[in-house]
């Protein structure tokens, strides 16, 4: 049943995509076809996800021409978690995108864009349900290619082309490792179907480690795991906002799905795997949020925050592996529940924030925080929604971010108290580091909201900004209410996660989890909500009673204060920039300070390229490229030489087959 619903959703998506492609130059028609199809497909898709979350796996089989097996789709509890996120976020992004691209549609054909959009949604749904290695790899590549074309939407801009190429490169590198992973696993299990992969549980520790590392790097590249995240801060700003929302919200999570799926096959993980995951996770979280603090590009800042959140999810996964290896089912369940819930939460609030950022971009025409300011007055609804999303992402209690981080803290503290000696040290350390991440996140989003929405406009575009249409605001409002719903009813959300937890956590963990006072954050949130709303009502009442007088802000004695004297995005991040970031991570600051006593014009500029990309990967690949130039003499451009290569290869293969026959 669940698998058939999924098939229906996929067919609707395919039909919508093809219709959009046929509509071609009639952009409005293409947008409507694809967005409509995504909306309609979401209904059976959500049905499939909810049925999957109930726990009973549903499988769909069909014959396939490709050697190596049948076409197998399976919707189980783990797929359900990710399907739900996909089919909640995708229709909202589609609805938003149709309105967002309306202006561009007059100038260029949108058929291709929408074809790839529905293709990406369908490919993601297939990735999390494919139950056969070849099918999985095929749809994984499909997902990468579709998202590549979506990122390259504004391909006339050189920076967008560069970002798209970087993304494609990262995809290919990760994909190559996944090919190795699945072919090796298929060889060990004797079949390419996932249901036979449980035989991997008897693999040697060495082989299991190899499989784990292949999965970690291969899927980690897609998930934006530190230090493989380099494509994220380039690709997210380059893509149109609804695409960034979809990619950051759910596509990145398919990497986490892949790693979780592989972990269900492998033999019980030793404790240090968990520590490795948690360590990379917390490093990524700290790195991501620290760099988010110094970005002046709004969407780049959000992309770095995605790296932070993915780091937090990996921290939860690592925690659960660690606890499982040390025999603490409750701690394992808490870590896993926190991680899975954070997958949903991040899909909701990061989707909301990217859509909100798109709204600001739409209104002002720039992503530069320094050219915004004062937007809350001009865009009250967009501004309020953006503030809501920021509250959710910094884990303020009545919203959902708090619940998942609370579960993670509980898990870590559980470890710190239950374990003894050196084993208790990692969870204890992680508590502190996670708290540091949370504090930095608060700084980042206060800065984002403060610079973009508050104060006075810093550019003419910001002065004339006005609200977009209802179809830009409605998706964000729905996402914010979902954030609020999870924050207020965390028990219900965890109830949905019961089946996936039973599938992934050690036996007995779910029962242990039920004993945790889950009503805690929920009722706390209600109380807080009540307090905040009473306070707000009181404030409004007081304001009504006392008339306000408006006057100039005190300008520190300057006669003619201008908007350029207010805090800039870089100025606000001075603390993070100068005190908290290690020297290697600091953005390069160019320009000179005034050297003389008398005033003179000076310019200062800050450029924050990704340090890992600039200091590690670019030199590495440039060096490799230089060495590979020497291989150019192989390309002689003469047919005879190429034929000789074929001949030599053939001869070598003949010899090898003789050797193999002799050996066998």
């Amino acid at each position, binding site marked *: 049943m669940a698998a058939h619903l999924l098939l229906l959703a996929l067919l609707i998506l395919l039909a919508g995509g093809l219709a959009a492609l046929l509509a071609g130059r009639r952009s409005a028609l293409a947008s409507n076809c694809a967005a409509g199809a995504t909306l309609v497909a979401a209904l059976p898709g959500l049905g499939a996800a909810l049925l999957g979350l109930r726990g009973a796996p549903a499988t769909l089989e069909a014959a396939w021409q490709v050697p190596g097996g049948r076409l197998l789709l399976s919707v189980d509890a783990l797929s359900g978690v990710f399907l739900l996120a996909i089919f909640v976020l995708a229709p909202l992004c589609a609805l938003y995108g149709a309105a967002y691209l309306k202006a561009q549609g007059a100038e260029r054909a949108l058929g291709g864009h929408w074809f790839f959009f529905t293709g990406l949604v369908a490919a993601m749904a297939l990735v999390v349900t494919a139950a056969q290695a070849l099918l999985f790899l095929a749809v994984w590549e499909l997902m990468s290619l579709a998202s590549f074309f979506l990122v390259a939407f504004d391909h006339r801009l050189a920076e967008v082309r560069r970002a798209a190429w970087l993304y494609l490169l990262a995809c290919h590198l990760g994909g190559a490792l996944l090919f190795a992973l699945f072919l090796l696993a298929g060889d060990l299990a004797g079949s390419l179907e996932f249901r036979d992969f449980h035989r991997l549980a008897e693999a040697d520790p060495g082989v299991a480690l190899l499989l784990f590392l292949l999965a970690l790097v291969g899927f980690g590249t897609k998930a934006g795991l530190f230090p493989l995240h380099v494509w994220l801060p380039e690709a997210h700003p380059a893509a149109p906002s609804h695409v960034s929302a979809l990619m950051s919200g759910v596509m990145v999570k398919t990497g986490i799905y892949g790693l979780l799926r592989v972990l269900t096959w492998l033999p019980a993980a030793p404790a240090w795997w968990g520590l490795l995951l948690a360590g990379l996770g917390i490093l990524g979280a700290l790195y991501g949020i620290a760099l988010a603090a110094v970005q002046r590009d709004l969407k780049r800042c959000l992309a770095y925050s995605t790296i932070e959140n993915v780091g937090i999810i990996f921290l939860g996964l690592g925690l659960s592996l660690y606890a499982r290896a040390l025999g603490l089912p409750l701690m394992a369940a808490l870590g896993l529940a926190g991680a899975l819930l954070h997958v949903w939460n991040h899909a909701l609030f990061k989707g909301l924030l990217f859509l909100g950022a798109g709204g600001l971009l739409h209104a002002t025409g720039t992503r530069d925080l320094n050219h915004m300011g004062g937007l809350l007055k001009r865009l009250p609804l967009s501004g309020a929604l953006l503030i809501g999303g920021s509250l959710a992402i910094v884990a303020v209690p009545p919203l959902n971010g708090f619940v998942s981080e609370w579960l993670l803290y509980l898990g870590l503290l559980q470890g710190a108290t239950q374990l003894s000696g050196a084993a208790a040290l990692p969870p204890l350390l992680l508590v502190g580091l996670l708290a540091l991440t949370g504090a930095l996140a608060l700084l980042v989003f206060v800065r984002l909201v403060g610079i973009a929405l508050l104060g006075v406009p810093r550019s003419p575009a910001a002065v004339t900004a006005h609200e977009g249409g209802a179809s830009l605001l409605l998706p964000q409002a729905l996402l914010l209410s979902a954030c609020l719903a999870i924050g207020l009813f965390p028990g219900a959300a965890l109830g949905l996660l019961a089946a996936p937890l039973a599938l992934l956590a050690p036996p007995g963990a779910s029962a242990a989890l039920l004993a945790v006072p889950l009503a805690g954050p929920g009722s706390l949130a209600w109380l807080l909500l009540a307090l905040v709303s009473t306070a707000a009502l009181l404030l409004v009442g007081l304001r009504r009673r006392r008339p306000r007088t408006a006057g100039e802000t005190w300008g520190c004695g300057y006669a003619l204060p201008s908007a350029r004297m207010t805090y800039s995005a870089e100025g606000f991040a001075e603390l993070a920039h100068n005190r908290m970031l290690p020297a290697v991570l600091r953005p390069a600051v160019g320009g000179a300070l005034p050297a003389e006593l008398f005033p003179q014009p000076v310019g200062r500029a800050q450029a924050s390229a990704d340090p890992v990309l600039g200091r590690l990967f670019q030199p590495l690949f440039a060096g490799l490229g230089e060495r590979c130039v020497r291989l150019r003499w192989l*390309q*002689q*451009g*003469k*047919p*005879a030489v190429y*034929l*000789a290569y*074929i*001949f030599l290869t*053939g001869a070598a293969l*003949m010899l090898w087959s*003789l050797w193999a*026959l*002799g050996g066998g």
Partner: protein
Amino acid sequence: MSDVNSVILLVVILLNFFTLGSARLVACIRAVALQGALLALLPVTVHGFSGHSLILALGAFTLKGLFIPWLLLRAIREVRIRREMEPLIGLVPTLFLGVLATVAAFLFADRLPLLLEHQEGLLVPASLATMLTGFLLLMTRRKAITQVVGYLILENGIFVFGVLLSTAMPLVVEAGVLLDLLVAVFVMGIVLNQINREFATINTERLSALKE
């Protein structure tokens, strides 16, 4: 029947050496035509008279023995060339390499885990030797037309191998291979004329000007 097979295959191998050692193009093409015609007999001598083998034999004879050689002879008449000048590796060394390749083919065929009925006879080693010869020709000659001859010999080798399987191999596959060959010859013919026109020579070495 196995004696007839062996004689045919020995002649095929000798013709291999002849094409390797000869600089005259017309003679090469005639040798390949003769080789093709001889090979066309093989389906009948190996599998006996039947509709399947007769069709194979007839198809191979018309294409390999008559049509393609006729096309090639016409082509060299048009581009007016008679001899392979300055091959990349001299004729005698090529001949020597061909002998080595043939020896290697016989040794290799000996070690292959074949069905019992295929272990006797010369079919497998002759097929391998012919393929290797075709490759050698392709690699060592400069003129496009000698390369076409190389392709033909390569295909002849594949054909001998196919005869082993022709009871199992559907006609369609063999027809497909022949069609491929025909198309390849046509394409080469066109390329030949184009090279002739553009570079005033049919020397494929000049193609490296197209590199990058």
